[in-house]
């Protein structure tokens, strides 16, 4: 090499500066790595993220009072346009006048034409019960209705004059609304524009959220209490024996969820194995068999069993590498076995406890199958209510709002898990 080249920056054989060539090569490597992930990322975005985004949209968007979609042809017709116009012209709180009722009559004629009275009424009914029948009744008698419409409507049903009905219709005439979120936390809009709680006898959701949280905490605690000793045993036994015992933890993990739930029904129901055994042993009278199934006990026991491996496995993977000589050193320095455990061993296992507890808690908050099958009415969780609104009451927007709240909670916990534990450390057996 001559002196001249030493002063220039280093280059590759092609004469490109080495720095630039390296940057280019690194960019290429990044691009290649990203291209490998891209197909899966696109797949997940389409089949997982988009549906959830659409669900979130559904929770703030309901066109039941603004648009009718024909079930068969898929044709879309705007509905309630005249009332909407009246709402736009008159500010909140205006007493509905003859013009408003005339607009209503016109719109209900339109509803009759496209057969949408039921669905429009249902949309109002979500927020004001008893309204659906008013719409269907008006739909039936609209042909005989004569001006003045205000009197005619009030004669049909005096609820048509209620100011809060008009307030609800005003809200519903724009498809975007937060009302379903309010309903999901037992609130509604008050006439003065603020929020107020729904009557006590209709409060459901806050209680259910509380119950879900309480039962999840309880289940997490139980899995910890049961899982800690056996994780410790598995971690301290010689590998050959612990691998054998590990099968007892992994077999439930691999067994179908429905199978495990069925097993618990068989064991715990009032004519089940456990009650029969207790009665047979004379420990329990035949008439006072313990109610352990189709209530909260059933949910808690079955879910603790199902989620226990998710606690044991993270605990085990943290406990296994702990060097036993620390505890021995503590003992030789005069610590009692309790002090050695509590001051030396236990603090080293806290990461495992955190990982296991967060995982179990996240999974139990959103649990659906087991509570649905063994929970009876007192053991239902928030997921079951979402399913109820999806399948039975068909209030999809409310279901979506409840699901969005649940999702928000789970994602916060997931973020926390990633921060504290790291997703990379998730292990399966």
């Amino acid at each position, binding site marked *: 090499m001559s002196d001249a080249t030493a002063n220039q920056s280093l280059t590759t054989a092609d004469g490109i500066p080495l720095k630039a060539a390296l940057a280019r090569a690194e960019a290429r490597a990044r691009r290649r790595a990203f291209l490998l992930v891209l197909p899966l990322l696109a797949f997940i975005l389409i089949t997982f993220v988009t549906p959830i985004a659409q669900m979130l949209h559904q929770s703030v968007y309901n066109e039941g009072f603004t648009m009718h979609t024909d079930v068969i042809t898929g044709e879309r017709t705007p509905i309630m346009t005249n009332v909407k116009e009246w709402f736009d012209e008159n500010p909140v709180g205006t007493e509905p006048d003859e013009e408003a009722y005339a607009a209503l009559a016109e719109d209900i004629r339109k509803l009759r034409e496209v057969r949408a009275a039921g669905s429009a009424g249902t949309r109002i009914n979500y927020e004001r019960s008893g309204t659906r029948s008013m719409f269907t009744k008006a739909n039936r008698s609209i042909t005989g209705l004569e001006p003045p419409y205000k009197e005619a409507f009030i004669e049909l049903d005096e609820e048509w004059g209620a100011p809060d009905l008009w307030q609800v219709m005003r809200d519903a005439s724009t498809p975007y609304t937060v009302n379903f979120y309010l309903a999901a936390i037992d609130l509604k809009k008050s006439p003065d524009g603020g929020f107020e709680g729904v009557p006590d006898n209709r409060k459901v959701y806050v209680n259910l959220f509380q119950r879900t949280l309480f039962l999840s905490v309880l289940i997490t605690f139980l899995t910890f209490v049961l899982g800690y000793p056996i994780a410790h045993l598995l971690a301290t036994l010689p590998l050959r024996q612990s691998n054998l015992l590990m099968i007892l933890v992994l077999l439930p993990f691999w067994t*179908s969820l429905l199978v495990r739930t069925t097993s618990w029904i068989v064991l715990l129901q009032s004519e089940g194995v456990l009650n029969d055994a207790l009665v047979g042993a004379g420990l329990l009278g035949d008439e006072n068999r313990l109610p352990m199934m189709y209530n909260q006990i059933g949910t808690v026991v079955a879910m603790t069993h199902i989620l226990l491996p998710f606690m044991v496995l993270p605990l085990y993977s943290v406990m296994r590498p702990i060097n036993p000589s620390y505890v021995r050193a503590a003992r030789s320095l005069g610590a009692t076995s309790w002090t050695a455990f509590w001051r030396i061993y236990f603090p080293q296992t806290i990461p495992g406890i955190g990982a296991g507890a967060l995982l179990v808690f996240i999974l139990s908050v959103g649990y659906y199958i087991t509570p649905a099958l063994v929970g009876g009415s007192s053991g239902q969780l928030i997921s079951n209510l979402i399913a109820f609104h999806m399948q039975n009451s068909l209030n999809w927007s409310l279901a*979506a709002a409840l699901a969005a709240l649940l999702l928000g909670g789970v994602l916060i916990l997931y973020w926390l898990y990633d921060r504290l534990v790291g997703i990379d450390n998730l292990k399966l057996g």
Partner: protein
Amino acid sequence: MNSDVSTTQATASFRFSLSFFALLSAFVVLVVMNARASGLLEAATAMLVTSVLAAGMAFVLVSVFDSKRTAMIVLGAMGLVLGLFAGGIGGAIAGTILAVLIAHFVFWIHYRHYLDGLPNYLTSNEVLWHYTYLAICSIVFVFLIAPILVIIPLSFNVEPYFTFTEKMLAFDPTGYSLRWYDLLLTFGMNNPDAPRDLSWWADAWDNARWINAAKNSIIIGFFSTILATTLGTIAALGLSRSEMPYRRAIMAILISPMIVPIIIVATGLFFFYSALGIQNWGIPYLGVVLAHATLGIPFVIITVTATLVGFDHSLTRAAASLGADSFTTFRRVQMPLILPGVVSGALFAFVTSFDEVVVVLFVGALDEQTIPRQMWNGIREQISPAILSVATILVVISILLLTTVELLRRRSERLRGVTPQ
């Protein structure tokens, strides 16, 4: 075990062992009498008598027999005879086991074999705690495994009950039958009572509900596993490269189907598929397969990235320097090494699909009955022991899968030279 007792820590003492047995049996009697709400005097007498009897028997046992083995054999034979008279074959088996255990336990306590293998600095309280701890662990293991095992014998019940009948407990063959397994074949058939020739089997294959459910489950599971494993493995290769940008965030998105509550996934897919009109596309199972693939992907990512953690990248560089193109390198060098991870990921994905019911309920067409959906309906409506026979078959399958995954894990560790600590 070693019957020669070391002199320093374990000397047999009748005072300790006999009072231990007396107290233990008194305690057992107390629990039973308490549960039966017996009178105080009656209970006290029973406790006294039993504790004296127990201590006496233990004394005789230890004094008469020199070796534990002889004691166990003799006592076991006595248990066998007594049990046979009391409760037939079932009683004989229970009696033998109980007697052998009692003999073992008496010698174990009397000769202080419980101190074997424990550090000799432990105080007696700590020894007691050690065994309490082992007892707690055993209870938890029983809690884990008993519910799964208990359904296996019940699925052979001849009666339509979910509990052990007296005939079953006595091991009377007439208490057992295969009728629920038979029902799995015949349920839904056109002519279940026809003679079992070829056309009967053809009928079962075409019409039996559970067979159709199994077919659907396997088809859905197969395609979703293929999809999840292919996409997941390729992505895991990218994710485990150090150059991967936004690695953490992307990983979080890809794992999230495992974390997000299933009801939310099902609700979202319900809206999404009905907006797309996917049921009118004419591709059977499409919606469910896509959803199940999504649910299986996190498992593939986790298992494959785990095998790639210890992957030595100089191997791929060596292959490249020897002239292999990147596909050949993948096929001949990387793939054989990560194959165990890929296969166990695929098994996880298959099991996830095979066990999934909520998405199928929400977005599956009516004729897309799968095994879990059929079980779900069975549990909700008329729970019959046929469910238990399905459950037993599924337990057997999961035992096989677990064994496979364990073998694969060990093979992978051996291949990569990772020895467990």
